[in-house]
């Protein structure tokens, strides 16, 4: 559905050499897929999204959505979009803002009120519907933005930092919403700093740094699970027995950290349990996405 072929974008400046915000990005997003974009601040995520919405044009390379330039695609079909910051005029009321956007979304007059009710219900802002946006908390404002993104049935969905400002309850609810909108004919793109969120929601995550894609991690497959990785093991007795079962393991109180593949982990645990250890929990010290992110992104 979305094809980026060697896309680059440089912000030019009268006073200096300009900033290359996106550099030779090649990526494909198919229908039915949820793709994450992860990267530090200034990595080029927002520029990439602006180009996908057709609001910026690449200097080099080609970007197409269903074979069309993005602006033409958006003008014909629209995109469900939640931006990083909700910048609507704060004097608008929540329901009024949604009504305006429903008009622009092309929702017929006879269905407009019902659709607005549906999204208000979906994001739980019923009690805030008559409030002006300036009276809403950051989380509630973000939920109004989410309601806006869910207003119309679109084949392309873009969420930019979707859980920014949401409390843990609504962060979890957001995952259900994304699970609900996942569809065979729909492509979803989520840009976020939250790696845990991306790991739970996406099929693949593209790690972007300094304008370029450093790595694309498959998070929905078993790839990488059997590889050696760092584990955290919690015990209630004999942590030294666990540490002794793994080469190079360290322990602090009742927590042991070691490196092993899945087979080695199980063998080591069996040895430790036989030696008197009582294991309470075993978990990866960091997710495969975190590991990939850490090795792909240069610290600045």
């Amino acid at each position, binding site marked *: 559905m979305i094809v980026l072929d060697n896309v680059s974008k440089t912000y030019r400046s009268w006073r200096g050499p300009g900033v290359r915000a996106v550099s030779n990005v090649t990526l494909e997003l198919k229908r039915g897929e949820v793709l994450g974009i992860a990267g530090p601040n200034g990595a080029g995520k927002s520029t990439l999204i*602006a180009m996908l*919405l*057709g*609001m*910026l*044009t690449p200097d080099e390379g080609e970007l197409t959505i269903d074979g069309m330039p993005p602006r033409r695609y*958006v*003008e*014909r*079909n*629209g*995109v*469900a*979009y939640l*931006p990083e*910051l909700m*910048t*609507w*005029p704060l004097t608008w009321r929540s329901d009024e803002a949604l009504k*305006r*956007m429903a*008009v*622009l*979304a*092309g929702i017929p*007059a006879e269905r407009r009120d019902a659709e607005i009710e549906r999204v208000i219900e979906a994001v739980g802002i019923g009690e805030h519907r008559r409030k002006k946006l300036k009276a809403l908390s950051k989380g509630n404002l973000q939920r109004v933005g989410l309601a*806006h993104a869910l207003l*119309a049935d679109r084949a392309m969905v*873009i969420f930019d930092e979707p859980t920014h400002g949401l409390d843990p309850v609504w962060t979890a609810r957001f995952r259900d919403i994304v699970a609900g909108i996942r569809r065979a004919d729909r492509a979803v793109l989520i840009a976020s700093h939250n790696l845990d969120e991306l790991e739970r929601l996406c099929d693949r995550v593209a790690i972007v740094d300094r304008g370029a894609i450093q790595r694309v991690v498959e998070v929905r497959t078993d790839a990488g699970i059997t590889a050696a990785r760092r584990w955290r093991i919690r015990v209630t007795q004999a942590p030294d027995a666990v540490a002794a079962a793994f080469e190079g393991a360290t322990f602090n109180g009742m927590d042991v950290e070691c490196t092993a593949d899945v087979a080695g982990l199980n063998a080591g645990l069996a040895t430790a349990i036989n030696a008197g250890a009582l294991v309470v929990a075993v978990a990866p010290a960091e997710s495969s996405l975190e590991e990939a992110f850490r090795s792909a992104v240069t610290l600045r």
Partner: protein
Amino acid sequence: MTLATLRAYAPWQLRELVPRAFVSVAMFIVFAGIPVFATMHAQRNNPDFDPNALGKILKMVYVGVTPLCLTLGAFLFMTRSIAEDRERNYVRFIFSHPVSPVPFYLNRFVAGLALFTLCFLPVPLVVRYYFGADVPVLGTVVAKLATLVLIGGLTTLCAALTAKDGLALILVYMGTQLLQQLSAQGILYEWLQPIVRGLPPVESLKLVVKSLIEGTDWPVTDLVHVFGYGIGLLVAGLLVIRRAPLVR
């Protein structure tokens, strides 16, 4: 984007424009009201003062004040509209829907033109029919339209090209006015004359507005020039908006 969408969204666009549209009326009330009230107050104990003179005073003040109110009103009405959509990132919301910027901004321009003209309409009507001053109603409406079309077209182009549309508009408007005045006085380099002739017809607009508000003449040629140039600027601005990035 369908016409039905544009029609349905027009009331929202009008709501945003209403406060700005009344600026020229407020300016008229202040600029015309103060001198007229002061005159009437000063003459209240003068037995020789002719009460019918009020109409003449009002007409004099109307002719003097209205062009200023129309020009300043059009400046304040048009600037920061498109530029603000960009600056505050409203464009990201608006144009993620199946909406094309050209019909969207054209719709806002036409709705604004109608609103701006309608809001000022009570001024000549009240001055003429309530206070009895001989001021032209139709002439004022046309003067208002001509002012907004030229300044609006210029602002649209400035907003399409730069983030500081207000500053760009003032510089272009004042610069053009100065050059055209120098040209009219014959104290401009010869090679500059064709350039000045190609600039927005700011001096023609002044003459058109003056004639229409005084009710002396209908300068059709100048009127066509002003409307034509204003529409040309508007089309150029919309084409730039179509081609240029929506976000900066």
